[in-house]
């Protein structure tokens, strides 16, 4: 109550004076007086790296008038002696939704998805909402302000956390005792973005991460065009244009998403401040190289509940490691000079902040860097360094007062001053009264022990060592307790005003109603007991500041170091060349510098590691033309064409399927967009270099591909959707014609030199017309297959590949004539109506008719044994073994235009090779070694070693978690089994 009174006085005396001077006053006389304050003899932490001992800070009108060693304090200033106290700038939370409520989701029950926007006079996509000004819906939240101040924050940046472009944020001081007029420091301080759609609209596009990325790119193109040529009203782009010079905050998520956002920003000259990256330590070099600034949440994972060992076994190494490694993240960022701010964002409760920050500091984060991450860095990111973040004259009087060095184990924050108004966090008048006292009253002597930390003290009372615990309160200078006296077996109540450390006197209230004065004198020798309760030596070993050991990728089966190209001689193998020589027996193959260096008998290979391959078979690595591994998302079905989206935007190098594919002898795959729409997205062709990041996986000079799709999926006949064109195969044809007509006009306009609106979708389609991009088309039924060839011919291009193509056998002659290749399943059928005529002889018939034919997987599991699938063409259709083998190696290489680099054993080609323990087409055969670019990425023997090492590491981590003291009392998470989404091209996500 006392605090409130103090506060009210402050309100009456100060704010009206410095801010509302032109406001009329009718409820009282318009008179005011602003008291100035000074704190003297304090340790002033002016900036994170400048400290002044015995300094003075003088404030008035909500600002710092002076802070330093020699500050003249005029007589009228209220001066307090702050001996032993430290003063720091208050913290700034640069990423919150403080006082800005997120709109409730509005999704009426619809029969079909909503494709069109709901707004008029705004951007065409409802999830682009830069016109949202957070200040318009801002309602200062005193409760949350108090929670933030308790953690040391004085200022917050807040915005409406809804949509992909979210509009402008505001910067507000957490000053309850004033009004928005004073405390809003900047009403339009920023522009904010994310990858997540708005809850205010159900518009279907974008339905994926890659769709969000494409939409952001198109938004900037559209802004550019709008600025040059805009002749319609678009309140969204108008607002976006006005915000362009403001700091841009991008809520991205994990480190890979922060880099995705960064790439978009870099393309359009917007240096996004990236919110996220709690796992930045996994990819710290790339993050440091980006030069981007980060706002990093510290929602470190809770320990898992391991009480049930059956549950515990479901935990993946990745999850256990993340628990151990995450608290090191701020330290790692700091050590790599990444500019970063810390935030309460993502914490379940604001009051966890100090505990989590403590973990980061225990994990080696330099306290000085922590301070910068909470003061100067966020101030700079917000463009407010001239107003907040340090204790320099002229800035807002936002500072915290502590009883010791900030972030030290026992330091308490006493006060948080915001705009010159004090908010007490701890009773500063409270003395350190913990200790053992000898109490005397009447003729009695007792021992009184006070221990624990404020506000929860504990008290013991008695004679000698025979003490009884009682209840105690210490507030507003008064100590009051109640305890049973063992001597008299009666309850004794006591009260005393604490004026000084060392002793106190007061009154006892005995059971018989008598009131007796007492004296209590502190015993000299006894030390405070409570200090030992958090002995730093008891910190768990999880939080030591040693080097962080990550693998590549940082999951189970990750590599200790990235595999490097070796010089290896395979001696005496059976080579399946895939070339005119067919198989070569008892032949050597020398891999060097990532290439197939030499093939021959009795090769001499100085310096090479020699592997005896007698009785074994050596082949080119398997190539999967149709894969969905290694990607975070597969379908962007929010529109009937999504030519603008790129699978390469959403690669997932941590996907365990990459490793499993290697174990099946696969070395290259095309990751295709799904089949949700007639015109899908752009493919990524990758080499399975397990451990490399997205950039390292992608083919250099990657041939450009796009997925098209025909049939049941694109007309949405297998799920509830009735309002997207096309709904029939007839419509599919016209959709293609329409898009190609538009792409043609677009290209002509572009060629003409007149200004044009950059359209990422039409750019992509124009590339097809120009022969720069190839189509791989999901297809089943002969009618539609023929249709697409005819459409292509009318636009003078050739369809590159029909994938699935289960009725290809019915028109192999026409396919041959058109020049298209085929990539099909060995024996799938009967899963939907359009595949009732699918036959396992399909591949053989097409191949025999001269169509370049491959066998693909479209399936994480089948991909691991495509050699067996190829062998089925021997059973179904009498393919020769050599031709069967080509269907998973050189033929898909040809279809992907990478046959000059891989797909067969020829000197000079990439060393993408597999050593098999037997005939590669046999069901009994295993891949022993898989090399990509001459480096061993899978090795059967190493795999066994990895299993043992993983089991050991998991057990070690589980033991640490079980014995972890720092988290012992904290909340625990139930162990989660990781969810695997196995993508097929029909997966909508």
């Amino acid at each position, binding site marked *: 109550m006392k605090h409130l009174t103090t506060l009210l006085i402050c309100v009456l005396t100060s704010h009206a004076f410095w801010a509302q001077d032109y406001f009329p006053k009718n409820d009282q006389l318009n008179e005011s007086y602003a008291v100035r304050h000074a704190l003297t003899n304090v340790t002033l932490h002016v900036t994170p790296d400048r400290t002044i001992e015995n300094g003075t800070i003088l404030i008035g009108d909500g600002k710092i008038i002076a802070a330093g060693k020699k500050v003249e304090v005029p007589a009228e200033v209220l001066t307090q002696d702050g001996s032993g106290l430290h003063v720091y700038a208050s913290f700034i939370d640069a990423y919150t939704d403080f006082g800005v409520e997120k709109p409730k989701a509005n999704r009426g029950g619809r029969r079909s998805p909503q494709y069109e926007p709901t707004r008029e006079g705004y951007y065409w996509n409802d999830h682009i909402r830069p016109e949202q000004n957070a200040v318009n819906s801002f309602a200062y939240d005193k409760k949350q302000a108090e929670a933030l101040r308790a953690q040391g924050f004085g200022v917050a940046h807040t915005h409406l956390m809804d949509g992909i472009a979210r509009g402008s944020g505001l910067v507000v001081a957490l000053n309850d005792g004033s009004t928005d007029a004073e405390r809003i420091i900047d009403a339009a301080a920023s522009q904010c973005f994310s990858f997540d759609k708005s809850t205010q609209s159900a518009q279907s596009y974008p339905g994926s991460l890659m769709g969000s990325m494409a939409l952001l790119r198109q938004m900037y193109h559209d802004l550019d065009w709008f600025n040059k040529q805009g002749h319609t009203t678009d309140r969204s782009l108008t607002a976006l244009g006005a915000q362009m010079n403001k700091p841009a905050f991008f809520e991205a998520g994990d480190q890979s998403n922060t880099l995705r956002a960064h790439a978009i920003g870099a393309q359009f000259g917007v240096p996004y401040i990236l919110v996220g990256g709690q796992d930045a330590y996994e990819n710290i070099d790339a993050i440091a190289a980006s030069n981007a600034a980060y706002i990093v949440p510290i929602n470190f994972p809770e320990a898992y509940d391991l009480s049930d060992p059956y549950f515990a076994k479901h935990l993946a190494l990745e999850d256990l490691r993340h628990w151990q490694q995450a608290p090191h993240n701020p330290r790692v960022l700091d050590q790599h000079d990444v500019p970063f701010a810390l935030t309460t964002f993502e914490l379940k409760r604001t009051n966890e902040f100090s505990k989590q920050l403590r973990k980061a500091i225990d994990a080696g984060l330099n306290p000085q860097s922590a301070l910068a991450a909470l003061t100067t860095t966020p101030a700079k990111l917000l463009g407010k360094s001239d107003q907040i973040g340090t204790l320099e004259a002229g800035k807002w009087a936002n500072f915290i007062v502590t009883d010791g060095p900030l972030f030290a184990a026992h330091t308490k924050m006493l006060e948080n001053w915001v705009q010159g108004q004090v908010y007490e966090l701890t009773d500063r008048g409270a003395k350190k009264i913990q200790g053992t006292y000898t109490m005397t009253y009447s003729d009695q002597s007792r021992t009184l022990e006070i221990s624990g930390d404020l506000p929860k003290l504990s008290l013991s009372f008695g004679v000698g060592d025979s003490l009884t615990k009682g209840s105690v309160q210490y507030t507003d200078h008064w100590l009051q307790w109640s305890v049973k006296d063992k001597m008299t077996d009666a309850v004794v109540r006591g009260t005393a005003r604490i004026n000084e450390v060392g002793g106190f006197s007061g009154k006892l209230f005995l059971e018989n109603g008598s009131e007796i004065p007492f004296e209590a004198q502190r015993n000299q020798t006894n030390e405070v007991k409570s200090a030992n309760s958090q002995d730093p030596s008891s910190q768990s070993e999880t939080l030591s500041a040693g080097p962080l050991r990550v693998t590549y990728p940082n999951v*189970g089966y990750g590599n200790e170091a990235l595999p490097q190209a070796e010089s290896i001689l395979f001696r005496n193998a059976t080579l399946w060349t895939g070339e005119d020589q067919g198989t070569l027996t008892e032949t050597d193959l020398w891999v060097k510098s990532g290439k197939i260096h030499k093939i021959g008998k009795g090769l001499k290979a100085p310096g090479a590691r020699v592997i005896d391959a007698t009785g074994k078979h050596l082949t080119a690595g398997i190539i999967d033309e149709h894969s969905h591994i290694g990607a975070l998302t597969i379908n962007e079905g929010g529109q009937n064409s999504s030519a603008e989206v790129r699978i390469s935007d959403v690669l997932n190098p941590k996907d365990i399927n990459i490793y499993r594919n290697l174990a099946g002898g696969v070395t290259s795959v095309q990751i295709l967009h799904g089949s949700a729409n007639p015109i899908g997205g752009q493919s990524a062709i990758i080499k399975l270099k397990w451990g490399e990041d997205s950039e390292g996986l992608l083919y250099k000079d990657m041939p450009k591909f796009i997925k098209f799709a025909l049939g049941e999926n694109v007309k949405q006949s297998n799920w509830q959707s009735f309002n997207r064109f096309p709904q029939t195969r007839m419509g599919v044809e016209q959709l293609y014609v329409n898009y190609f007509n538009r792409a043609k006009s677009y290209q002509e306009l572009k060629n003409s030199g007149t200004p044009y609106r950059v359209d990422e979708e039409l750019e992509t389609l124009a590339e097809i017309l120009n022969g720069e991009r190839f189509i791989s088309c999901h297809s089943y039924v002969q009618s539609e297959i023929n249709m697409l060839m005819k459409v292509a011919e009318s636009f003078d291009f050739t369809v590159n590949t029909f994938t699935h193509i289960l009725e290809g056998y019915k028109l192999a002659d026409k396919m041959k004539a058109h020049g298209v290749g085929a990539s099909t399943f060995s024996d799938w059928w009967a899963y939907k109506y359009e595949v009732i005529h699918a036959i396992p002889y399909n591949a053989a018939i097409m191949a025999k008719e001269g169509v370049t034919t491959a066998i693909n997987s479209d399936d994480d599991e089948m991909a691991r044994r495509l050699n067996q699938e190829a062998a089925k063409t021997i059973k179904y259709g009498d393919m020769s073994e050599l031709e069967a083998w080509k269907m998973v190696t050189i033929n898909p290489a040809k279809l992907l235009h990478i046959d000059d680099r891989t797909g067969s054993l020829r000197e000079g080609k990439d060393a993408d090779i597999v050593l098999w323990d037997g005939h590669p087409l046999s069901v009994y055969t295993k891949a022993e070694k898989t090399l990509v670019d001459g480096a061993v990425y899978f090795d059967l023997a190493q795999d066994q070693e990895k299993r043992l090492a993983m089991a050991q590491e998991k057990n070690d981590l589980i033991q640490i978690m079980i014995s972890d003291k720092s988290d012992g009392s904290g909340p625990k998470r139930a162990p989660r089994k990781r*969810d695997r989404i196995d993508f097929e091209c029909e997966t909508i996500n």
Partner: protein
Amino acid sequence: MKHFITLYTWLILGFMGMAHAQQTPGTPSEGPVTLTGGTAHIGDGTIINKCNIILDNGKILAIGGQDLSPVGTIIDISDQHVYPGIIAPVSSLGLVEIDAVRQTRDDAELGEYLPNIRSIIAYNAESRVVETMRPNGILLAQTTPQGGTISGTSSIVQLDAWNWEDAAIKLDDGIHLHWPNTYRRGRWWAGESRGWTPNKNYGAQTQAIKTYFDSGMSYRQEQPTIPNEAFKALTGVFDGTKTVYVYADGEREIIDAVHQLRDLGVKRMVLVGGYEAYKIIPFLKAQEIPVIVDRVHATPAQDDDDYDQPFKLPKLLVEGGLLVGLNARGSMERMSTRNLPFYAGHVAGQGLAPEEALKLVTGNTAKILGIDDQYGTLSAGKSATLFVSQGDALDMRTNRLTHAFIDGRRLSLETHQTELYERYSEKYRQH
């Protein structure tokens, strides 16, 4: 024979376009037939080289070496291999024709406890999917309802029949119980994370199963006059005339299921799935629980699992002394069932002897399903249900059937797929 069928097909196609039904079921051969000179893979782990097999009256009259004199019609299968018909257990074969077409789906009924739901009456003997099993050697199947807690009652059929009644070789052989999981998937549509989360209702769910079986037992002992078809259908599990096929993967779930079903008085029990069964082999051995392992061609359940865990699981169980069979459950399971011999082959690739691997889809499966008096191995007195392949039938590279018999009837190895193959090969020959 093959040419005759091709010609016949052409005639049919000429009149009816593609609207043809399954191949016509075979007729009993007149008099005995002897397959001579092949390598016989008995299905019990042994081989007879240069084997003569005499088939008569639907049975294997005799089997032996060259000293066994051929009788009746002689089919020379020198350099070829002969196998017992492969058996597909816990299969929805014949219950669904096209996965995505709801009108063709008859595999899962509404409700949780449905022991009286019988697959046999919905089994489509004329399914085009079923006929594609035979050219790969799959001649028998346990057609099984799906879904719910107790999905229903299965029956065992042979795959060359005019209708379900003719197809049935063992009616209503068992009920199928899907044991609850200690984990459940996150209800992501309700805002939960997509991952797996502990199933807090596990205890209640297992208790509900107990209550149901207890009630069934009570109903049986009371011999009540009030009709209750569900409990009537459950009765067989208490006297051993029906097997309980219990589907469970986790170590704890398996232990719970076995103990609880034993306590409830279930006589015959088979574990289906058993992903973690290898961790409790001594327990399963002591309890004499056979295991029908789920599809070998599957990805490991957890990211950190061995990449070859599903490949090697049957081998681990066999080496531990358990009776093991293989099934083809999973996505697109009807059409994938024709790969059953290759699943066994892939297990052999992990180091299990090929003849042991063959047992996983023949002899062992017959024992598990309780039809080993007639099926599963090549031995005198048993049904003449077998096939001949030019090469190793467990390897797709060499699996190529020339003859197949079910109960002594020689059946067509053509399918609508071979007909389409012929039809379009002919198209290109004409060009």
